[in-house]
């Protein structure tokens, strides 16, 4: 079970993350996108889910990642990602509830350049009972 004290808290990612052009190229190739000058709208999941996973799997938070199913996903893009962009990342546990024994957690991830948010995303994760 998730530690209830973690709900509403924001966790800063350790280091700044730099997106490489080759990461964008690989993602584009899978979906058949030939214009690789900006990343496709869902590209940032590559960064945000890894961040969320490392935060939520911490024993002090207590989410069992091995039983996680992705419930829904939303992106708000203020500035499209380009190769060479660097971001600081933070994740906030926005809500938590238990329904029919399943834990339902919504995590917001922000990618920032300096103090400006480039992209926010929300992932609802369901930990199956």
């Amino acid at each position, binding site marked *: 079970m998730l530690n209830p004290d973690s709900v509403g808290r924001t966790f800063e990612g350790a280091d700044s993350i730099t997106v490489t052009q080759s990461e964008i190229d690989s993602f584009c190739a899978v979906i058949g996108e030939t214009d690789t000058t900006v990343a496709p*709208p869902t590209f940032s999941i590559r960064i945000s889910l890894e961040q969320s996973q490392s935060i939520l799997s911490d024993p002090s938070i207590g989410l069992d990642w091995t039983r996680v199913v992705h419930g829904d996903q939303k992106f708000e893009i203020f500035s499209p990602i380009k190769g060479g962009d660097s971001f600081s990342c933070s994740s906030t546990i926005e809500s938590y509830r238990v329904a029919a024994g399943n834990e339902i957690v919504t995590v917001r991830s922000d990618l920032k350049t300096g103090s400006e948010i480039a992209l926010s995303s929300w992932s609802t994760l369901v930990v199956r009972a």
Partner: protein
Amino acid sequence: MIEVGATIPERVFTINRELLKAYADASGDQNPIHQNEEFAISVGLPNVIAHGMLTMALVGKFVTDWAGGSSKVTHFGARFIKPVIVPANTDVDLTVTATISAIEDKSITLDLTATSAGIKVLGMAKATVLR
């Protein structure tokens, strides 16, 4: 026509095990439920399933092709309501359509529909793009 209620022509994407492997490598999501049939069945799934985010990435491609490029998208969201089931050596469809649901000064909102084998796989799928 760009007007509320107008529909955007259907497009069919193909999903198979090779695409799942490629998406796993490109996204970093190597969860075995998307590649290993034995594992997927052991955790109660009918077969290997596609990454929900691969489905969403392909629907995103539908949106960005219509809108004029990846830089046009400002909002994109969906609920994963049913898995896309991907048996070995099989091409399965992801069929995408959209309806224009709102037109603002600077943006257009699309309500998106995505099905595989006739089953709706995304719910509440919406994208807002710059005009």
